[in-house]
């Protein structure tokens, strides 16, 4: 994992026992994870235990730590990579373990956060149908044809919408057949 000079400097400051004692280090790492995961953390660095640390230093360390954590999650770094990186920044083993356990605890949330930065087509979540029997219309009498009205519920970025279309029985059979093909290929893929 490659880190920029400024991130490295911030981490080195964070590792320095003269700047952060163990207690404030623990509180600080918790705050860093909170600030990344929870939508609005107004006073990230206003914790009373951190009052004695210079605010500029605190902000710098915060930037470095958040960047490091995000990079780690982004590249799916394993324990050895993370600890070697932190040891390069002169972290003590104890502090590395602390950070790593917090990272593991928050990993799913952070991955969810990063995977949500994505674009995808509308996602079908459900389907509803209606069977109709057309008897006549303005242009044609004695039609007497069954037809289906299909409504697909879709979702995109939290907003849902519907796609409505009609089809005859043959067309619905075609549609279902193609979907079954897809499901079959999924099953095949799950067995290899």
């Amino acid at each position, binding site marked *: 994992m*490659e*880190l*920029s*000079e*400024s*991130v490295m*400097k*911030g981490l080195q400051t964070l590792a320095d026992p003269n700047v952060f004692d163990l207690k404030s280090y623990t509180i600080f790492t918790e705050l860093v994870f909170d*600030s*990344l995961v929870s*939508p*609005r*953390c*107004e006073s*990230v*660095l206003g914790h009373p235990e951190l009052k004695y640390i*210079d*605010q*500029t230093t605190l*902000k*710098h360390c*915060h*930037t470095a730590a*958040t*960047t490091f954590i*995000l*990079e780690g999650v*982004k590249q799916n770094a*394993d324990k050895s990579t993370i600890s070697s990186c932190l040891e390069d920044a002169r972290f003590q083993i104890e502090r590395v373990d602390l950070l790593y356990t917090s990272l593991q605890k928050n990993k799913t949330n952070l991955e*969810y*956060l*990063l*995977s*949500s*930065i*994505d*674009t*995808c087509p*509308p*996602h079908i*979540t*459900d389907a509803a149908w209606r069977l109709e029997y057309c008897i006549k219309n303005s242009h044609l009498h004695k039609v007497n044809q069954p037809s289906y009205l299909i409504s697909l*519920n879709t*979702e*995109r*970025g*939290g907003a*849902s919408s519907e796609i409505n279309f009609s089809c005859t029985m043959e067309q619905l059979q075609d549609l279902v057949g193609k979907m079954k093909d897809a499901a079959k290929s*999924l*099953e095949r*893929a*799950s*067995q*290899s």
Partner: protein
Amino acid sequence: MEEVDRILIHSLRQAGTDIDEDVQSVKQFTSELIVEAVVRCLRVIDPALGNGLSHSLPPGMSARFRLGMSLAQACQDVGFKGEIGYQTFLYSNEPEIRSLFMFLVEKLPRESAEASDQPSGKSALLQRAIAAQIRAQLSVPWLPPSCRLPIHRKTQSSGPCHSFHAQPLSLPYSVKLSSRKQTKEVQEYWRNYLLPVTSQPSRHASVPASLLENHISELSAAQEWESEWNSQGLLSRLTPEEYRSRKKARLQKRIEEQLRAAAQPRPDAHGATRSTSDLAELLLSFGGVSTGGDVLTKGTRFTHTEKFTFTQEPEKAAQQMAAAASALPSSHQSEEDLKVQQEAELSALQQQLQQLSVQMEEVGGDIKQLTVSIQQVSDELQQKEVSNAEKENSVKMKRQTIDLLPDAEDNLLKLQTVVEASSKRVVHLASQWEKHRVPLIDEQRRLKELCSNRESESSRKLSEIKDLHDKIRQSAEEAKKKESLYKQLLTEYETLSKDVSRSAYTMRILEIVGNIKKQKEEITKILSDTKDLQKEINGLTGKLDRTFAVTDELVFKDAKKDESVRKSYKYLAALHENCTQLIQTIEDTGTILREIRDLEEQIETENGKRTVSNLEKILEDYKAIRQENSALAAKIREG
């Protein structure tokens, strides 16, 4: 043979043959099994060849015969040298089948055999991971959107979707300057007003994107600088700071030139002095930067006015800053109040701004006029001064000549002597100069040489440094590659089921090798024993012959004299003959025994070929074929 059979059976199983657990040796293979095993092996070795063959014996006898023939042909195509035909498969005998299997197993490509059993490598790992993921998702039942648990939210809906939207972040450090060198205002801003990075973007969703992007841009900037420094910076023999500042100056100069070129078409070329156009002003400010290195220290008009406004109302500005800062966090205040306050502030500020700009314009006009007039006046002054000096000079000259005029002759002489003396002095000085010059030139040459030497030395070192840099980079890359490879191999190794058979095989192979070694030793021992025996026998025979010859001679000599001795000579001859016969008989017995053993072995091998049962089978099959033929004939007749 047991070991060989076990290995063969294991390999055949790996190739895809379905062999029962209780089949332990090749002897137990039935025709069906043989055919299946051979076809499977052929399919692995040469798919095109093997896929045309059925792996099960057909019921019809003639079809069996045909399959046997084609199998034999296929085996020969693959390269089997031994004798092979349909009978090899249908009426098998153990050694032939074993040699065929050994050949086929040898031919099995190692990787594909492994691949069919345990696909490995990155893509296979990925494939398996994908399969597992799909399985996991398929196993989760579908739920209506309203009753979804977190586990469903990830897979059964697209979830929140944000585009990768990065915003510039303001960071509490600077890459170029250490924090102590920053101005006090900046430091204060960092300490008191700068928001933490996670609160800076307008939407929380763009926090990760902004942070990641910021990091990447820092990294790539560092990389770019690195490569530039390695390719050009090092050769320039400057410190990084000097290189940077020189590059900056060069850039600024070019921009300035471009701007000047663009401004040239203007009719009044004195734009710089009159400073009427903005472009000229810009140029001026550029000039200031390129010479001074800092905009703020050099007094351009803009900075002057800026300073002017800021020094005029420092307290006010501070108050405004504080007000703005206090307004920032207290966003919970009622909107109305805030709006009113902001509007009032805005109007006040606008008024002030207008006032100031009016003032500024006035002052600017004044300044312009004044500078123009100053310029004119100073020009005039200079001209006047120049003319003044000229006039003074001429006046001096004239006064001297007038002083000298009364005693012209004398003065002329004096002047001549003075001229002569001065010319002499000039010659003297020249000689002196020459004296000094030679060592100086030498010195200069020496220094020049030294200088060039140093230059070549330094360029050599530079190239060495460059090489080293390259090497470092290469090694780092290699290390990275190797590390990733190591990781991959490690995961592969972990996923690999611990194949016990491999180690067992190596153990067994080692054992076999040990056995063979022991046997070899024994054989050599026996051989040497035999040799010794042979030698002994030869020695004894020689001794016997010699003893016999000596005895024969002695007895023969005496035999002429003595009758009884003659008799004993006769006995001796008879004894010798008898003994020779005896030896001959013993040797004959030995050869016969050996022959017997050979024959017994032959009988054994013949027995191994299952001739009787095979013959019976052949008879049966012959009957079956006849029956088939007659049935076919009957059918034809019917048809």
